[in-house]
């Protein structure tokens, strides 16, 4: 399941969480790699497994452990890269990947936007300029939230700018982008 692009739709930007969100991942997997080496060399040094003929076996176990770590690390990267918010000139799409088999996609048309606010919370978010953008909507889901995105104020301004442009070009939320009919009249789709 992935968003279906309309032929007249232009993607303005694809936003992901701030890279600081990956920091804990890097720290965790860095620690696990170091732990693997520490156990391997400790076993070799203190228990002298190498001289007992277990050296190759320990090395094999270490590599299998690294294989598992490698895949786990890229699964977490996959979660990061597949969680995204796409701003187009017609809508905002929120894609949320949870593990391998759960994926939520919701979209918001500019005509449904009621209010946009930015929430920057705490020392690190202020210093690194990241935070949440919260969009109040008139739809079934009354809040649309961009989590931990970089430069939230800039994103908010961009959304407002596209919102104004969309409302100018689509009075009463009427879509006039389909190819002309035989009578040379545009096909009007009302959402």
């Amino acid at each position, binding site marked *: 399941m992935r968003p279906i692009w309309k032929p007249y739709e232009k993607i303005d930007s*694809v936003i992901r969480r701030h890279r600081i969100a990956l920091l804990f991942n890097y720290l965790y997997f860095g620690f696990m790699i170091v732990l693997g080496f520490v156990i391997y060399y400790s076993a070799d040094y203190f228990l002298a497994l190498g001289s007992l*003929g277990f050296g190759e076996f320990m090395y*094999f176990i270490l590599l299998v452990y690294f*294989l*598992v770590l490698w895949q786990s690390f890229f699964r977490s990267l*996959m979660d990061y890269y597949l969680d995204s918010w796409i701003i187009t000139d017609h809508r905002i799409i929120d894609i949320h990947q949870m593990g*391998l088999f759960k994926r939520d996609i919701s979209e918001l048309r500019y005509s449904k936007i009621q209010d946009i606010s930015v929430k920057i919370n705490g020392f690190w978010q202020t210093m690194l300029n990241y935070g949440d953008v919260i969009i109040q909507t008139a739809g079934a889901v009354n809040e649309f939230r961009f989590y931990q995105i970089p430069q939230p104020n800039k994103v908010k301004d961009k959304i407002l700018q596209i919102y104004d442009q969309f409302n100018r070009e689509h009075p009463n939320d009427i879509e006039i982008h389909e190819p002309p009919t035989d009578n040379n009249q545009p096909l009007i789709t009302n959402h």
Partner: protein
Amino acid sequence: MALIGQRSMNISDSSSIPLVIFSLILTAYIIGSVFVAYHLYHFGIGKAPKAILIIFLAGSGILIGMAVWAYLQVDWGFLPYEDFMQYLNVNSNLSL
């Protein structure tokens, strides 16, 4: 290599237990990798997920190669196969 070939041919032999376990681990890893690769390729938007995918596949290939090489270097004779088989036999007799 001939020894490895002999091992893999006889699955019922107790000395093939490490090979079976390693094969299962590799199969699980490859299945997991296929899922990760599919998601990154199919659902990834932009160039970054594809670049991540290439790094993941390259690293997986190298690590699998190293793990297989390490497996071949191990002299699996140190494992107590006979004790293990005896244990299995005793337990199977008990259950009967």
